[in-house]
């Protein structure tokens, strides 16, 4: 695409990693900063709670990306499965014919800087197979 800067990669991200509490900010890496530095777009998930319609809307968007050459990953926090809404989101994605995106879980009990580096490596390494990239990214 002429002059288009998109990175073709995006991440499902829990609200708690985009808007961390003061306490979490001290123990978690700056996930939004790491995503930006690695050229990923963000699909923000809602805070824990019942958000059936919004999760369905998000699943529709993931399906559209996945069917057109975009790489989608999910980032969560170890021990806090509710942030990704995985029990609700996974069936919605499967129902749309999608393989579940690879997940990377951040450990809040480990040094934030090293967790940030691990996240950066995961993001940097992941992409679709070259033949899929060539098919769509023209």
């Amino acid at each position: 695409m002429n002059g288009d800067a998109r990175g073709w990669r995006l991440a499902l991200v829990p609200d708690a990693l985009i808007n961390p509490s003061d306490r979490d900010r001290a123990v978690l890496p700056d996930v939004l900063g790491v995503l930006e530095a690695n050229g990923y777009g963000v699909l923000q998930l809602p805070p824990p709670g019942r958000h059936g319609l919004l999760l369905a809307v998000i699943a529709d968007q993931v399906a559209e990306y996945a069917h057109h050459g975009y790489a989608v990953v999910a980032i969560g926090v170890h021990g806090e499965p509710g942030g990704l809404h995985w029990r609700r989101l996974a069936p919605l994605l499967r129902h749309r014919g999608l393989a579940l995106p690879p997940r990377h879980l951040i450990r809040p009990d480990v040094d934030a800087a090293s967790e940030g580096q691990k996240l950066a490596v995961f993001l940097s390494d992941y992409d679709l197979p070259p033949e899929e990239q060539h098919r769509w990214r023209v």
Partner: protein
Amino acid sequence: MTHTESLPGVAQDRPRKVALVANCLMNQNAKVCEGARYRGVVNPVVEALRSRGYQLQQLPCPELAFAGARRWWAVYEQYDTPAYRAHCRRLAQAIAPLIEQHLRRGDDLILIGLDGSPSTGVRFTSSKPEWGGRPNRPEDDWEIVPRRGVWIEELEAELARRGLPPVPATGWALDMGRFDEAGSRRDLEEFLDSRESAAISHGDEPAGQ
């Protein structure tokens, strides 16, 4: 306090500053082909908001879910259809409960849209009533007109239906033809700083500080 103080609700903790952000300002993959100016996150917008203590609430992208990742460029009039408006209303109903929760808690909300967009424009949208048929417009011959995009109109209508007050809004001028990042940044910062000044002149402690 803010314009939200008369709303009934439960104020459980101190008010926060929350920015409702157009989907593509956190995810440029949502843009129409040739429309992405950044790889993913639009950092100048996110930084301007975070540095002033705003939490971010991303809005859904109405065009991507409706017309797809490989949609044609379009103007306001092409999206101004009953089916697209119904789609936008569904998205508005999906995100409105979160917005309502913030407003009833007394949080200070703002909305950052995408000026020039047929859907997410706030101050300006793109217009060309005669566009349609074969997509053979080699020149940028649309016009920029001062009005909301279709999605923002439907989102604001949904909030009004719920009895919620209007959310102060501006747009990042990404879709205005020639993109001027420095000018867009200046506009956004002026908007954000005017919010701070207004809060201080009313004797309010800015939320979330």
